């Protein structure tokens, strides 16, 4: 949840706002209908508004800023997209790793970063899983790490809840809570790439 995007993004405002925001952000040329659009909106299309403003948007630098704050539409992401690794995915993974560090011990952060940049659809799940696990009072700490399956060579992101109790009722409660609220609803997205485990403090 944020208060920023809903009020900051001019695209959610007037037609003029939508058009000026989009034309400021994308390398799109409107050719034949330019005059019509300009007449409708009163703003320059394909360039920037002639009005002076202290807003961060409406400039080539603003374009870059928009990308940095993840407001750029997916259409434009395709334009800038990498074949091997999309910049936006990498940034999302980087932010996720930073966020993970506030709720978990991230073992070999670069490995986690590379894994998440190549599996960016898991960023949200990994962060939720680590946070919800960390929020439990019966969990001492959370460890996030990448493990490689020796048989398939596939990598997975392991989120481990470290507990000090040997009471297996507690272990079961943690397992049930995490599986039921986080992992099972995300099973179709996850496809077993994010794995949850519980370990005793003395064994870690």
């Amino acid at each position: 949840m944020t208060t920023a995007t809903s009020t900051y993004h001019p695209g959610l405002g007037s037609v003029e706002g939508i058009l000026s925001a989009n034309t400021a952000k994308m390398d799109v040329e409107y050719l034949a209908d330019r005059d019509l659009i300009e007449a409708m909106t009163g703003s320059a299309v394909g360039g920037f508004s002639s009005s002076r403003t202290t807003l961060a948007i409406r400039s080539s630098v603003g374009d870059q800023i928009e990308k940095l704050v993840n407001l750029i539409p997916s259409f434009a992401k395709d334009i800038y997209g990498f074949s091997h690794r999309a910049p936006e995915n990498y940034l999302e993974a980087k932010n996720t790793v930073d966020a993970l560090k506030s709720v978990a011990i991230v073992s070999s952060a670069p490995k986690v970063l590379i894994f998440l940049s190549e599996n960016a659809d898991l960023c949200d799940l990994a962060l939720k899983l680590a946070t919800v696990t960390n929020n439990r009072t019966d969990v001492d700490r959370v460890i996030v790490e990448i493990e490689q399956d020796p048989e398939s060579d596939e990598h997975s992101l392991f989120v481990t809840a470290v507990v000090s109790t040997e009471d297996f009722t507690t272990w079961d409660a943690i397992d049930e809570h995490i599986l039921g609220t986080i992992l099972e609803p995300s099973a179709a997205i996850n496809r077993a790439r994010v794995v949850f485990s519980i370990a005793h403090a003395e064994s870690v």
Partner: protein
Amino acid sequence: MKDIGFDRSDANHSLAEATFVVAYAGDLEGARMDKLNTVVDELAGEFSLRQKNQSLNVSLTQGKAESTESFNGWTLENTDPENGVIQWRLVIDRSRIVINCLEYPGWSTFKEQIIKWLSVIQAHLSLESVPVNEVGTVFTDRFYWSLKGEQYNLEKLFNLDSEYISANITSKGPLWHLFQGWIEIEDNREFLQNLNLSTQWDVDKPHKTEILHIIRCLKGGDEEFSGLNMKLVSEALDKAHTDNKKTLNSLLSKETIEFIGLNS
């Protein structure tokens, strides 16, 4: 800070990204676009990954849309050879140069690299004669805060007496944003500064605070924008650094300033 709720391990600064942008007044054409390949060849030793960028042109004619793709420059990435982490990303395209630093190495190295790469690009493309629209520096600081078992307290992160903090948000809870912008004239140059503070929080995720500080030079002195001027670039970078540090020193609590080693 760990004792009072922040847990950002191994932090020695809070800078998540630093970016420098040069925007030309018009698009690069013909020979200069062709020469982009020689720039990329010269920088090949410093950037392990390279990708050609395509621009998508859409034309709308009487309700019919047609699209064509064309070469729009290069994106280069410099990665840590040991672990593959991207340290720098350099985008040179038809309308701008963007140097994006994802693993901030400290100010002197950051500036040195920018000047070095811009000088190489300038030499190959003769950018001293290509009019510039603006140059800008963007600093993004992010703080993630695990609110496990404690209440959000703005005062932990920010100096509530700062001129950049509105009294209104001090009692409004963990979700807020405060965006501001102003113009400054300095040495016959016009700078636009934007300071955008924002938060994000879902109950099942850490609380996130983002400080986006943008310092753009929109107008230069005599002839300074008639081409890429390295003196202007250097001085605009220095101003951005000084102003960002000054702003953060005013904006953040003493505890946070110490935690991120802002003045060390």
